[in-house]
């Protein structure tokens, strides 16, 4: 069945509609590109067409990109290069059409989709909340391969294009207009008429040649000649190297493609782009990043749609987490009742939610009216008003079982029997909490990560008595909220914190032995962790980490016993970033160097310093995580290794370029891991001894279930 159809009106304006059959989202598959190529050939020789508008037949997206499943299986760089060449040629046909072209964009316009729109002379964009433009290829370890690295800089200027291409970030309509990416922004219902009107106006005019971005004079000058442009390249390259630490080749390749085209001309640029993307497609990093992308898709698919509709929610606890959760729910359309012990606490929570809305409005993620509507949906008070109507209540009060049980009991005095009680606890047992309920089946864990508006993962914790329908309802809700849910069974630390803890405590142990904060953290960041162990400990809060470590110690045994150092720092009042006293020094929100007081504290017990080889630092921390992950699977906290990997990538930022913790283990091979663990156990202690499952797997390899 055809994916395209077009009509020509009485004025000679042709409207070409792309509507991929049987798919919710338009993609540029090879078949689609072939069909498009044929159609463009037809259009180019038409005598009646004076202008062309290209639009999508989908209600909420333009074109979301190329077909990733086609790229996924390519291991030959030449094939990748050929794919890119073909795509470039087809899109070049759009640019070569003998009449003006306008792309009418509503919804997601990403990757190849944006590259297609760039090949058009003009772009009209709808102002709806789902309209977003971007070239996110670097996030998958590749670069734009359909000419984006050549067309975008010539349209929006070097700096703007590098900002988009090197980070893969999304651009919203308002910014798109500002940087010249969109020629016009209009509301959804007016999109086609506006595009047609623009096309009509453009008949018999030449294509605009100048860069359309509104740039400050300084930037214009900087970008206008090769000498000063090289300054921009160098700055970009330094930033990339600093950010990626050599772990992600794609941004450097993208920079190279842009630069090559600007120095040697467009034709050479296209050829170079194709060459580079060919190499990247076949690379292990891209494969791993695509694997991680599919993991996020699995998480969304696993959250099957639930018949339960959740429209009214009540949140108890108006602190950072509670207020953040309330803001998230309200932004996504739920009405929210926020409760805390007194009006001062409620007011603080409302203020937090309001500030988050304002921040998102400034970034262009929501409009002013959406922010106002969102705040309208949140009401609060110290009593239980509004809780009777709640379909769902989420408690985010302090980590104290008695307090939480009281919140539960209060809720049950007014709640409907089918209402769901979700707890945001990060360390207490959901099963234990549910035991205080009259309806334990309705109690479930819904563990968000901080900050709620940014962190994509939600751990959904099944208590022993939790009703599967409740798990399904909360999973479906998480997807509606734009989060990725992973369902785990109840256990100390659930999944993510349990695996993260040994990473943190082992780093602290190495510090006790005389290593330096700087060295350990930089090695871990070179490995690919988004922040070092001590930065993370400061962020989480040393007090929180210490308490959670204690709970895990009690629940899981001596292997996760926290080192003395944590206890000492906690007792000395070092709580981390929140009180300005942590492993690092803080000036307000800014982190300075390691705190010399902490270092002297350690030195006073230790007396000597020790340098541990980089590889051992990595082995000791990462292998303990692998061990803990294996135990999680052994004990049935979760039964799917791929979902475990997804949880760690999206929960703590485990380096996606490695494909996930257990994929990394897979690539290393169970045999090697068991050998290393054995060795470490002999030298440093029992906590390293390999778990049974790993030991057995060392015979055959540990198979991370790969998405099909």
């Amino acid at each position, binding site marked *: 069945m055809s994916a395209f159809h077009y009509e020509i009106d009485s004025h000679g304006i042709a409207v070409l509609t792309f509507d991929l059959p049987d798919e919710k989202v338009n993609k540029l598959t090879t078949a689609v590109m072939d069909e498009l190529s044929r159609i463009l050939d037809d259009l180019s020789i038409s005598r009646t067409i004076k202008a062309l508008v290209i639009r999508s037949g989908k209600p909420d997206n333009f074109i979301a990109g190329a077909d990733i499943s086609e790229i996924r299986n390519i291991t030959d760089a030449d094939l990748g290069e050929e794919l890119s060449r073909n795509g470039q040629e087809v899109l070049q046909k759009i640019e070569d059409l003998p009449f003006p072209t306008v792309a009418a964009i509503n919804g997601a316009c990403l990757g190849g989709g944006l590259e297609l729109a760039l090949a058009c002379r003009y772009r009209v964009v709808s102002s709806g909340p789902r309209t977003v433009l971007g070239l996110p290829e670097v996030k998958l370890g590749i670069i734009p391969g359909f000419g984006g690295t050549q067309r975008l800089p010539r349209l929006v200027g070097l700096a703007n294009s590098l900002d988009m291409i090197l980070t893969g970030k999304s651009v919203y309509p308002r910014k798109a207009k500002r940087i010249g990416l969109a020629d016009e922004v209009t509301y959804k219902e007016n999109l086609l008429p506006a595009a047609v009107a623009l096309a009509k106006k453009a008949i018999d005019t030449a294509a605009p040649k100048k860069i359309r971005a509104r740039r400050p004079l300084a930037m214009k000058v900087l970008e206008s000649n090769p000498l000063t442009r090289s300054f921009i390249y160098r700055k970009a390259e330094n930033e990339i190297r600093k950010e990626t630490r050599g772990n992600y080749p794609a941004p450097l390749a993208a920079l190279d493609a842009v630069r090559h085209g600007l120095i040697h001309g467009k034709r050479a640029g296209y050829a170079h782009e194709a060459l580079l993307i060919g190499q990247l497609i076949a690379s292990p990093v891209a494969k791993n990043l695509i694997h991680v992308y599919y993991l996020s898709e699995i998480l969304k698919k696993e959250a099957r749609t639930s018949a339960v509709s959740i429209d009214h929610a009540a949140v108890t606890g108006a602190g950072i987490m509670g207020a953040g959760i309330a803001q998230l729910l309200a932004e996504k359309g739920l*009405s929210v009742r926020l409760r805390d012990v007194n009006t001062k606490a*409620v007011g603080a929570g409302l203020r937090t939610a309001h500030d988050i809305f304002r921040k998102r409005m400034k970034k262009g993620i929501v409009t002013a009216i959406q922010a106002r*509507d969102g705040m309208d949906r949140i009401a609060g008070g110290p009593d239980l008003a*509004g809780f*009777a*109507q709640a379909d769902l209540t989420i408690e985010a009060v302090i980590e104290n079982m008695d307090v939480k049980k009281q919140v539960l009991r209060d809720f049950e005095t007014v709640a409907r029997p089918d209402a769901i009680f979700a707890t945001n606890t990060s360390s207490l047992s959901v099963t234990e909490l549910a035991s205080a309920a009259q309806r334990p089946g309705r109690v479930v864990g819904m563990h968000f990560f901080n900050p709620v508006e940014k962190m994509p993962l939600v751990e959904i914790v099944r208590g022993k008595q939790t009703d599967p329908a409740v798990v399904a309802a909360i999973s479906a809700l998480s997807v509606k909220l734009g989060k990725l849910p992973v369902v785990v069974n109840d256990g100390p630390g659930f999944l993510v914190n349990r695996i993260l803890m040994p990473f943190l405590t082992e780093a602290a142990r190495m510090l006790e032995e005389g290593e330096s904060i700087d060295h350990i953290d930089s090695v871990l960041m070179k490995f690919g962790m988004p922040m070092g162990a001590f930065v993370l400990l400061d962020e989480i809060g040393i007090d929180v980490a210490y308490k959670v470590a204690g709970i895990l110690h009690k629940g899981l045994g001596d292997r996760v016993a926290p080192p003395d150092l944590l206890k000492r720092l906690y007792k000395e009042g070092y709580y981390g970033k929140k009180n300005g006293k942590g492993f690092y020094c803080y000036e307000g929100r800014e982190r300075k160097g390691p705190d010399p007081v902490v270092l002297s504290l350690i030195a006073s017990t230790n007396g000597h310093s020790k340098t541990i080889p980089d590889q051992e630092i990595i082995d000791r921390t990462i292998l303990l995580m692998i061990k803990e992950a294996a135990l999680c699977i052994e004990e049935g906290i979760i039964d799917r290794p791929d979902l475990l990997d997804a949880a760690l990538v999206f929960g703590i930022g485990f380096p996606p370029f490695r494909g996930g913790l257990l994929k990394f283990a897979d690539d290393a091979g169970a045999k090697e891991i068991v050998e290393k663990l054995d060795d470490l156990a002999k030298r440093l202690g029992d906590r390293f001894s390999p778990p049974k499952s790993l030991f057995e797997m060392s015979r055959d390899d540990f198979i991370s279930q790969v998405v099909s």
Partner: protein
Amino acid sequence: MKNIVIIDGVRTPYAKSGTVLKNVTADTLGAFVIKEIVARTGIDPKIVDEVIVGNAGMPAEAANIARVIALRAGIPQPIPAYSVQRNCASGMQALSSAYAQIVSGLSDVVLTAGVESMSNFGFYTTKRLKDIFTAIGRSKTLWEKVIAGLAIRPPDLVPVVGLTLGLTDPVSGFNMGQTAENLVQDFAISRKEQDEFSLWSHQKWSAANEAGKFRNEIAPFYVPPKFEAVEEDVGPRKHQTMDDLEKLKPYFDRKTGTVTPGNSSPITDGAAAALVMSGDRARELGLKPLGRIRAYAFAGNDPSRMGLGPVFATNKVLKLAGMKLSDMELIELNEAFAAQVIACEKAAASEQFFRRHLPGEQPIGEFRRDIMNVNGGAIALGHPVGSSGMRIVITLLKEMERRNLATGLATMCIGGGQGGAMIVERI
């Protein structure tokens, strides 16, 4: 005859204009109280048949403020809404309209509110300036625009204060304060009497506030952008003294008047809401009502003496209900001005007054002070014009509940020369 019940009512703290609520629009206040009453009564908004909001100012940026309020409060789109305006009694009108709609069978469940943000009453341009701007707007060329603009003269630039316009009766030409001065003349009311009455209002409010009596009536409002909670009325003076009152100068008649800002109700911002439904529906839903509306009446009187409205309206409603003023166990008589309340007291008991203005009727009797405005009145906590009519009914019912009384009367004067009165009962 159907039982029409009020399930519960709630209000924001009332705040003197220009203070904490000055930047909160009327529709924001309204959406807040509607959300609160829905939350407190626990109903599913889907069962509501209509939303009726009383508002005097009718801000231009929220046309049909009831609809704006309803949608912002999350009331589902299919539920219709309309606004009512009976000047100072708009809040009571919302309740009356709800009553009429339910008793006639057109609706079963109605959400009502009375809202006003007097801080946000606008300034207007003179008509001449508006015409000049319109001419500028219509001119096609820059030159034409300039020529049109040259017609502006300095007097055109003086803004017209909306508040002043709104509080002046166009038919009689008197503003509200002047109508009070008229009553001072008619009934020979002394400055001292007015000040004493006002002091008493503040004292009663203060005692009630200390005793926490407003806690089940006021919903704490969190004022953006800092969201600091306001839990008490802002404006009433906890330590008002006669000295303070005596020092004030008359405001509406600078030379010989006696009505001062101290013995008048302050310009105020606030909102109140109530859930009204048929008694049968309340029973079905398992909701215990606060009380029922027994009867209500509005009556017209001389706009230049609008403050006497309560006498005419109370007379009418008592006849409608077949009751006597002495049957009322608790009374709320809105304190627009001390002089106006005192004038009502005198007129209600006066044979002479009735002979002249209501021939054939008997004086209704005494508005007993010991059962009137027992927790303070508008002189202390303010009179947001579109909201007071609802507040006095809610506060009346809640105090009746506290004292376990059966029958109460809420009555008020209305700018333009009317009175409103509502008899409520506890069931």
